[in-house]
């Protein structure tokens, strides 16, 4: 795929519940396997998506948003993969943690930061959008 071509897009919508986080990871594994990522990079992406979805699930539980959902949108470029995780899990209030232990949250943040090249968090009216970018061919 040339750089100026529109990226291929894959979209997955899942309930914002613990049992569906594995579905998001599996989808990401399939998408990333089609790209020139190393085995380790694919594992990094799988873990990062898992952590982001887990965070959405935790906030949905905290906000009692039982009908919340996660939209995973992947854009496949020739040199990078962009993944948007958009949830309707309600607001993530600063200074207020989820039911998770603070240490666990810090670990999740650390993992996400270390595993992907770019992460951007944007509050949305119904939840949060996190965009992560992983470049192929970089370690």
């Amino acid at each position, binding site marked *: 795929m040339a750089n100026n071509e529109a990226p291929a897009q894959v979209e997955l919508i899942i309930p914002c519940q*613990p*049992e569906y*986080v*594995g579905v998001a*990871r*599996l989808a990401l594994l399939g998408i990333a396997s089609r790209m020139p990522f190393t085995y*380790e990079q694919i*594992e990094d992406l*799988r*873990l990062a998506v*898992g*952590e982001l979805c*887990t965070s959405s*699930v*935790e906030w949905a539980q905290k906000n009692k948003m039982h009908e919340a959902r996660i939209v995973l949108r992947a854009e496949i470029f020739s040199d990078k993969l962009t993944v948007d995780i958009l949830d309707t899990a309600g607001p993530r209030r600063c200074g207020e943690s989820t039911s*998770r*232990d603070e*240490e*666990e*949250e810090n*670990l*999740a943040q*650390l*993992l996400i930061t*270390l*595993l992907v090249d770019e992460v951007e968090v944007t509050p949305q009216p119904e939840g949060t959008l996190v965009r992560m970018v992983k470049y192929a061919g970089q370690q």
Partner: protein
Amino acid sequence: MSFKIETQTLDDGLPVIRLEGEVDVYTAPQLKQAMIALLGKGAKRIVIDLTKVEYLDSTALGVLIGGLKRLREADGNLLLICPSARIKRVFEITGLDKIFEMYASEEEMKTATQKEPD
């Protein structure tokens, strides 16, 4: 995405929780329950066998850290059997490989722990 958990007792009486599959936000509560059950029975040292684990996230790490803290408060320890480079990497990138006592095999762990007083 199957997950299995089984608590066994080794020949020397050491309890071991054997995990298989993916340990994440959905399955980690089962690990927590198994550890709480052993702690409730007064276990001082617990072995977690990650040999057949193929995915592990921060939720699982959090449960393991919680167990380690409780055991060390009671002068005990949590021992991990982790031969998989993929799983070990999660501990390495978070720096937790320096906190947990990790072994590549059950044999290696037995050899090391037989040298220590219980």
